[in-house]
């Protein structure tokens, strides 16, 4: 396992573009701390974002995992191209001839994806913990370490998303087209949902079906955290809108994403096995 990771590390770390993207990704992850510095001071209106409770435990786990998940696109580029480049450089052929099995090849890529997700999760955990310890109004241990399922959801979401990228890289073989395909796919999920709700079945049923789509199921793992903010809740009450959303992470959501992850990895392997290089 270590050998497979080392192999992938050599390939990635010696590529300047990948190195820059990976580094920027982790810098961005850390930069979430900068949000704390957002302050408006316009005469009587004093607004300090850190004072709005976004860094309160356990809400911070939800907020930070949601925001940082947006940066995953950086790594998506790295992952798609690390796969597609093996085809365009034909190095995949050389790797196999040198004695890497097809299973090991896919495994080395998947392990890289898991490591990226693991390190990201660890990063978000540490950054959030520090931010929380500085700004949170509640500092009891039991509160700090509640709602940690958001971190697990973050990890599963990243592994799922990156596995999808991996599969697209193998399937399309060209990084630019694979990324285009990714965007196309996200639009496609919405279009299918629209068509289903409009013509085929009821909107409620369409929503249930949509929750099973790969990208939507990953989105569902961490729902938007903004309507949980007290400030937003207050505004809502003033305009007479009762906001009662469900923010929890459910086990079946894990199950759906895990299913897609397994499927994408298996399909990548099946595709590689079937193809003549």
């Amino acid at each position, binding site marked *: 396992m270590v*050998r497979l990771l*080392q*192999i992938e590390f*050599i*390939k990635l770390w*010696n*590529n*300047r573009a990948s190195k820059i993207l990976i580094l920027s990704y982790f810098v961005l992850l850390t930069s979430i701390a900068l949000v704390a510095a957002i302050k408006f001071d316009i005469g009587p209106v004093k607004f300090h974002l850190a004072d709005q409770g976004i860094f309160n435990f356990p809400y911070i786990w939800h907020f930070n995992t949601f925001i940082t998940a947006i940066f995953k696109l950086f790594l998506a580029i790295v992952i798609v191209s690390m796969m597609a480049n093996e085809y365009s*450089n*034909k*190095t995949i*052929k*050389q*790797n*196999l*001839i*040198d*004695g*890497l*099995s*097809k299973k*090991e090849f896919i495994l080395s890529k998947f392990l890289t994806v898991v490591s990226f997700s693991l390190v990201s999760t660890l990063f978000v955990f540490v950054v959030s913990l520090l931010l929380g310890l500085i700004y949170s109004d509640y500092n009891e241990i039991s509160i700090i370490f509640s709602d940690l399922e958001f971190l697990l959801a973050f990890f599963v979401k990243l592994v799922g998303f990156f596995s999808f990228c991996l599969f697209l890289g193998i399937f399309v073989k060209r990084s630019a087209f694979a990324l285009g395909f990714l965007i196309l796919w996200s639009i496609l999920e919405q279009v299918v949902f629209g068509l289903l709700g409009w013509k085929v079945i009821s909107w409620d049923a369409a929503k249930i079906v949509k929750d099973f789509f790969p990208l939507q199921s990953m989105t569902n793992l961490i729902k938007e955290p903004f309507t949980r903010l007290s400030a937003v809740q207050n505004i809502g009450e003033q305009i007479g809108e009762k906001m009662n959303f469900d923010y929890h992470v459910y086990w079946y959501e894990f199950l759906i994403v895990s299913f897609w992850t397994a499927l994408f990895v298996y399909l990548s392997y099946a595709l590689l*096995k*079937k193809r*003549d*290089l």
Partner: protein
Amino acid sequence: MSTILTVNHLTKNFGYLTAVKDLSFTIEKGNVYGILGPNGSGKSTTLGIILNVVNRTSGEFSWFDGNTSTHEALKKVGAIIERPNFYPYMTAIQNLKLVCKIKEVSEGKIQEKLELVGLWERRNSKFKTYSLGMKQRLAIASALLNDPEILILDEPTNGLETQGILHIREIIKILAKKVITILLASHLLDEVEKVCSHVVILRKGEKLYSGPVDQMLASYGFFELRTEDMQKLKSLLQKHLSFGNIKQENGTLIAYLTEEMNAETLNRFLFDEGMVLSHLVKRRESLEEQFLTLTKNN
């Protein structure tokens, strides 16, 4: 002698096209083998199959004793196919370190192999800055990293200029002297003739011949003869049991032997019959002529 590779009734179809058809051969340790055939005869496909990058349609092949999986066996094989494939953004050293990781061998041999192919000076240059000849030599260094039991070369001099071709051939000769088993695929006859002891000849995916190079055709050679009375000479030879095909070309009679006979015997025989020759040469077909006869007749 131990067997390194056994190929049994291997077939590969690409759609309607049969690239390799019912091919069987074995490779024994210590010999230098050539796979010879015109472009598109299935050489690269055959190599692709035994190297785990092309899926076979039917048939079997096994490496060594037949108990190791293909990818484990490939760690004891060194192979170069068509174009050298490396990571363009990595230096020679970095690329070779990666190969060591894949083959699970120590990095200690990198310097020795780079020196062998004359690239040690350029070890820290990126692969993309290399010329084709240098790329091909790096590929050879990479294939040798594990001190392979067999070296597989697919058209190693293809696309190189004379200087590069000579350089590669020199390296191959050095290796052949070290009693490494080599499998060399080429469409160039003289390349195979110069290096190989055994040859497999392919045409449109079918095996035409496999065996030692010098027994490629069960040929006993032929005589080129000239004399005053060509008609009499011809009828004499036609009656003789040792000759098969006889033809006349530019005033020279060419008589193919069907059994071993040396020039002296023929000369004495003709002299006894009252014929004096003005020209007598015994020749064997060159590999090229044999190859052409083989591929034409079928």
